[in-house]
């Protein structure tokens, strides 16, 4: 099930997938908002809204699993969305799998348990649902120059590279030092709002 089989098979399947996909590219791009980047300020920093909007457009709310923005390319998602991601000629960069220490395995093998295709733009009934908005804040730093803490939970995002390095990393969160692969050595998860209190004080 891993998809990490023979390289030849993998290349062949990609070639087929690309062939099948070329007619669909314009359609699959429609979910990406390609307007001119809107800049605005959060915490005194400039954020490119367009890239965040593209991310948000695929999610019901910040934290929901994204819908799949392309047409079905075959059954094994992790052939392309492996630990490092992959450039697919004619389609773009398939971002790496963010889940788990071992790409394509673990609890996340059944990708379509959470990620679904979109086969229509119609709705059954309109909805008033307003989802949690994309969180633009960056992680706290102890002082200027100190490594920021993670501003989000690392659960299901154990592969930091998936979003913070490579072609799919949004500019605002792209890591300047991807060669240092042990990210959690310096960047810790912000798991609690409490402060240390000595027992009995």
């Amino acid at each position, binding site marked *: 099930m891993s998809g990490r089989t023979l390289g030849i098979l993998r290349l062949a399947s990609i070639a087929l997938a690309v062939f099948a996909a070329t007619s669909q590219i314009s359609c699959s791009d429609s979910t990406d908002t390609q307007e001119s980047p809107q800049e605005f300020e*959060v*915490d005194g920093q400039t954020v490119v809204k367009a890239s965040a909007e593209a991310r948000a457009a695929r999610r019901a709310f910040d934290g929901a699993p994204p819908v799949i923005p392309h047409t079905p390319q075959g059954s094994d998602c992790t052939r392309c969305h492996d630990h490092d991601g992959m450039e697919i000629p004619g389609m773009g960069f398939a971002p790496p799998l963010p889940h788990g220490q071992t790409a394509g395995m673990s609890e996340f093998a059944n990708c379509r*348990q*959470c990620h679904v295709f979109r086969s229509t733009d119609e709705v059954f009934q309109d909805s008033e649902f307003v989802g949690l908005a994309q969180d633009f804040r960056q992680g706290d730093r102890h002082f200027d120059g100190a490594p920021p803490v993670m501003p989000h939970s690392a659960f299901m995002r154990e592969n930091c590279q998936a979003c913070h390095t490579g072609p799919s990393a949004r500019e605002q969160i792209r890591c300047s030092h991807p060669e240092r692969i042990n990210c959690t050595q310096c960047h810790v998860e912000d798991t609690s709002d409490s402060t240390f209190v000595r027992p009995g004080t």
Partner: protein
Amino acid sequence: MATVDRREFLKSLGLVGAGTVLTSGDAEASATATADNLTWDKAPCRYCGTGCGVEVGVADGKVQAVRGDEKSPVNRGLLCVKGYHLPGMLYGTDRLLYPLKRKADGSGFERISWDEALDLVASKYQEALDEHGPEAVGIYGSGQWTVFDGYAALKWIKGGMRSNNIDPNARLCMASAVMGFVTQFQSDEPMGCYDDFEAGDDFILWGNNMAEMHPVLFSRMLEAKRQRPTVRIIDLAVRRTPTSEYADLYVEFKPGTDLALANGILHLLVKNNKVRRSFIEENVVFRRGIEDVETIGYGCFGDQSERYTFKDAAKESSFEEFAKFLEAYTPAKVSEITGVPESQIKALAEIYGDSGRGTVSLWCMGVNQHTRGTWMNNLLNNLHLVTGKISRPGANPFSLTGQPSACGTAREVGTLSNRLPADMVVMKEEHRAKTEKIWGLPEGTIPPKPGYHAVDMFRAFTRGDLKALWVQVTNPWVTMPNLQRFQRKPGDGRFLVVSDIYPTPTTDVADLILPSAAWVEREGVFGNTERRTQQWNKMVEPPGEAREDAWQIMEVAKRMGMGKLFPWPENDWHEAMYEEYRSFTVGVGKDVASYAQLKQVPGLRWPVVDGRETRYRYAAGEDPYVTKPSGVHFYKAKGYGEKAAVWLRPYHPPAEVPDDEYPLWLTTGRVLEHWHTGSMTRRVKQLHQAVPEAYVEINRADATKLGVQRGERVRVVSRRGSVELPVRIDDRGRPPQGMVFVPFFDENRLVNVLTLDALDNISKEPDYKKCAVRVERLEASP
């Protein structure tokens, strides 16, 4: 126990605005919420019986996000796509907001007040009672009823109106599993639990597409397989599904022949001496019931098509008779019936017979929605009883449920026509007496004769024998089998009241529609598949004038002079009602956790004694009711000398099989993205857009023969009706030649106009999985 959100916490310390902890201007600058100013609280998922823990994020009085609860031992933070999109389910623009009464000229509905609506329900029920007696009133509920709703309904109808006409849609869903456990262990619900997914070695799925129907549990199983590569998944099915893609062995059998397959495995276990004789001698008795196919029938032909009341009769049997009975099920014979190669039958017998490996059998609708579904449950439990692979970590028969509280409400509260809380039944005098005592009612209040089971209830309503019917939290005008025969035109002299959150085909035919509060718009308790009771708090206000179902029932009861059944203060009754219900369960091995404890934890598995939950029922060292030092004790089965019963159950063919006129099998089911009739999931954009309409899966060879293409619309026709559907070939499910599959979520393409109302002989559960159809092209061949 709402967790204090970060902003509130900081406010309490006077830190907001100081800029030292929060980065400045973050949340307040934004019109919409961010993760830190949501209030998070726990709830079980609203959909299937897995009972995943979710954390619900609320801001501005609305649910804006959910996340998997990492503290929940069920799902450990993971959800499926339906669970991740729960919030959207609440906010469709067509939510029912006010009571709606059908206009006198029948031309639609008009808004009325709650007082008028409740008075109307009370007067219609009183009228039916006065003129026609308790058998003329009924309530049809749901495995999505919270414990409160189900308990209120049960008490009102059995204790107040002295009628047993209460049944849940769970009758269409897991009644066969109930009767399997009851006939063998004299107590409902599984002995095993989800811990089996980490402890088991071989997982045998009987007609069970877990990858789509119980995806989070399926992922737990895949993770176990990743960690221990010796774990095997065996998929026994009538059609290839996404589950099959992950299986080590795929075994395809002909529809309905699972009875022969299970008997074939039992035959080999006995013949090859792979049964555990010492375990059998200590813990097992043998029973045999009525086996004549003519006597039993199928519940849908002749007189049985109006009322089906077949009752099995047990006689004692023995291991010797069991062995003799199984002689007929040789691999050659079973292979001929099932279409399964002999080698695969032998492989299955080796898996069940391997005493060194833990075996878990898993099943759901394939086994339960079956004209001999109780028998099939019996045979699966038999496989575990004769091998002693039961009540041990990683070795159990385990039935999965499809609704969030099919176990907690329908089965445990006992909202079935024949049942009372905690495994009791109306047929037994001491059970009625105990119930009357707890309810403070005079002896003899509850009638001893069971009421209508679900399908008979709708047959009776259509005939006119049932005059007043209340439907809550379910959608029978989509889900009844042979739906054509239940067509209704209001103004027929009967009264139908429907409580729901959205308009459905069922509200379309109602005389009165009541708007209900959904999920976290009210306080609730669900019980999941592994005996886990889970509580949640009200987190947001329901829209408009929507109110919770239990409140609706209690208000009607008060108007009928039955208010003393619900003696609690109007604004503070949940805990008191729950604790009254709990008193039925304490001391009988069904002990649910206290309300106070449930508020603190992500659920507990009953029996809960001294605050401690039970993983494995009947097991020494696990179940507090077992006093022996080791092994198992089936202490609930008083009628069998506290042993479990192995039943001898033969193979019977299905009620309707393909022929020249209708040459294809039709089987129906769900898809991952939609839950039940889609009344909730279709209002979620992402789910609807993933699977916007029902379709028919056709085998490529059949499609070629018919000359139909993928995407083409065809007409699927049975003896009962027809429906037009787009064709899918080699898609996510792949039926074998001679079979088609249609999901049932789509109210615009009602597959149940095709299905047959054939019923299980013991559980009276319909068989939605087997009937005969043909496929017709709509357009001429090019």
